[in-house]
């Protein structure tokens, strides 16, 4: 390896992303446990690791006894992954390919697809479409997917302090009325850690699908849910989290991003309500959420929310748009 600035520059790959994902202990060990506790599934099988990054999941699969593992990633970290695989003695089992799954050429179908495709809000910027493409093109008829399920959940939270810091500050900035920025702020969901104390309602199921059968077009969803106040409080925002069960093997493992346990690197997605709901304990609010990729920019998610609440302290019926970008 030469040490010129040019070489370094071409090979530049931000290690921080990979470190953040690997140091996300719950994320990484969920995959590890799902694979190792079901090692019998992997014995002598062909595995595809979609978006392999540093190759960690490919090595888990190889250690579980896979005959052949193909790790594919379009970023230049594939260069490092290839060396890592070699350094750990898996070069006869694991092949690392730098490129797109769409350009992949294999000489046999794959028995298992492992991939950590989940994004914020589960679907934002996720690699799920790539996984579905791989499933349909390269999977055997009974291909096993790790994970094979996905569920999104939503609950109401109170967040007075944040509201002040992020929204109300715009009312008066050095004597200017920046309330237009406040309005725009509501469009931006926030990715942050929600603490369990903030949760003010029950948790409702938002959207679920089976990765064995889901199609790309199914991922634009409309969901109706009801939230009941667990205490008398002001519901300032909706908090969305997800989990992905691994049920392909006999021992199930669930990777969860709930606010009830230590935060993962996905944290939670917070949608601030234009008109917070002052709810008394037991009162119910109805919501309808539509979520689809933005027409101009499919990497962005458009989220439309309809809120219906008739409580003792207030009645609110309104629509609000969000955009995750």
């Amino acid at each position, binding site marked *: 390896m030469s040490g010129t600035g040019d070489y370094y520059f071409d090979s530049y790959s931000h290690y921080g992303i990979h470190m953040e994902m*690997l140091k996300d202990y719950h994320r990484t060990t969920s995959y590890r446990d799902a694979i190792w506790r079901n090692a019998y599934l992997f014995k002598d099988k062909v595995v595809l690791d979609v978006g392999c990054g540093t190759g960690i999941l490919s090595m888990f699969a190889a250690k579980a006894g896979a005959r052949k593992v193909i790790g594919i990633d379009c970023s230049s970290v594939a260069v490092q992954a290839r060396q890592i695989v070699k350094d750990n003695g898996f070069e006869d089992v694991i092949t690392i390919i730098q490129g797109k799954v769409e350009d992949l050429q294999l000489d046999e179908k794959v028995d298992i697809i492992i991939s950590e495709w989940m994004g914020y809000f589960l679907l934002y910027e996720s690699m799920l479409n790539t996984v579905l493409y791989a499933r349909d093109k390269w999977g055997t008829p009974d291909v096993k997917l790790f994970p094979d399920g996905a569920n999104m959940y939503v609950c109401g939270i109170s967040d007075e302090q944040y509201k002040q*810091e992020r929204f109300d500050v715009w009312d008066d900035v050095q004597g*200017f009325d920046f309330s237009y920025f406040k309005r725009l702020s509501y469009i931006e969901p926030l*990715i942050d850690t929600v603490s369990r104390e903030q949760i003010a309602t029950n948790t409702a199921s938002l959207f679920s699908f089976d990765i064995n059968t889901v199609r790309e077009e199914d991922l634009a969803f409309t969901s109706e849910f009801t939230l009941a106040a667990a205490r008398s409080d002001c519901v300032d925002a909706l908090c969305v989290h997800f989990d992905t069960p691994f049920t392909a093997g006999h021992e199930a493992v669930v990777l969860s991003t709930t606010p009830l346990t230590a935060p993962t690197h996905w944290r939670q997605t917070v949608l601030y309500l234009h008109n917070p709901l002052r709810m008394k304990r037991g009162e119910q609010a109805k919501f309808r959420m539509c979520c689809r990729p933005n027409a101009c920019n499919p990497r962005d998610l458009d989220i439309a929310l309809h809120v219906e609440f008739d409580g003792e302290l207030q009645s609110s019926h309104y629509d609000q748009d969000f955009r995750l970008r």
Partner: protein
Amino acid sequence: MPSRKNPPPYASGPNHNKKNNNNNKNEKKNNASGRNASVERIIANESLLATESEKHATSKSLYGDPGARISGNVHNIYDRIRMRAYQSILKNIKGKSLLHLGCGMGLISMIAARSLASVVVAVDHSAIVDAAQVVAKQNGLQNISFFHGSLRDVMPQFPLQKFDVILCEWMGAFLVNDSLLDDALFARDNLLAEGGVMCPDGSSIHVVGVSDYAFHLDTVEYWSNVYGFKMEPMKALVRQEVETCSVPAANIATSTCLAHTVNIATLKKSIESDMNGTGSSSNNNNNNNGGEVEGETAKKMSGQDLNDYTVPFSMRASRDTTVNYLTFFVDATFTNPNDPGANFVLGIRPGGSNLWTETSVGLPEPLPLRAGETLSGELRVRVVDRRRGAAAVDITARTDGGVAKVETSGSYVYQHC
């Protein structure tokens, strides 16, 4: 996975005592007080939420435009140090014209407009300026116009072509690597009125020796054993990276050395090609929009190099210590020949809060030092691609032999986000 590249949500600044308790709970049913709200929704969706880049499905959305994220602009409200510095120039802006490059949310520009500047023109690459324009209008500011795009593209639409004051924070983490510098130089050579000023006009880089073995363990040694696997190749990636993060005061182990100063007035002229042979050109030679380069002086021709500097540095250890990182701080100064009262320094506070987050590089070999011993070395910075703020940084550093004679060298890559 791409979604990880998202900048983390901005950690909120100091607690803010709200001035007006504007918890307006009078609700508008169904948003139906109607037209205004929905009109604004359309504005929002068409300007701020649909940036130019989005006409291409492959665009990276806000990755290419992080400034358009409203939440990312919250900290500007709390940026009192910067505000106070600019106040000194703003209080004399009455009757003068102002060009603000990299105006962001436009707060400083609006203050200038409110201070009765004759004309304010504010430019930014980010779609946030579309929202700023709405705010300016809503606040009844007449004498201000915002432009979204690159300076050379939008310049023909400016209401005037010469400005008394050009505000631009053109300094990068390594002084000359920021993409705004091209615009600043272009503005200096083409848009500055006779006797006009560039603000800030000077910037220095300071070097400090840092002792942080834990960070090294956490970022480099971490890869020795990742869930039972060796990931040695990742160490090279970590070692070549310039880290951007705050350094706690407790880890600062030497005095501060001012290593290099750049002045906007003496940098070479803007149409110099500024590439040294890597990749794409970051400087559109401007021949196509009437920006005639006039008033070029011989001084500018032979000014400081835009793309490459090599400077020595030397610091003294403040205690018995082992330095394994060098940290760089950038300041900005303004010296106004017409109004010395408006001078300011946006200074640095190693270990405290700084205007720009400091950058650090890990030394391949740690340097053991006795208290008072000199740590010396050289810093070389080469701009690789200014549009991306990218620079190659080479460091040599050595002890004086108080504990042991050690000399170490490393090469690093810096680029924005």
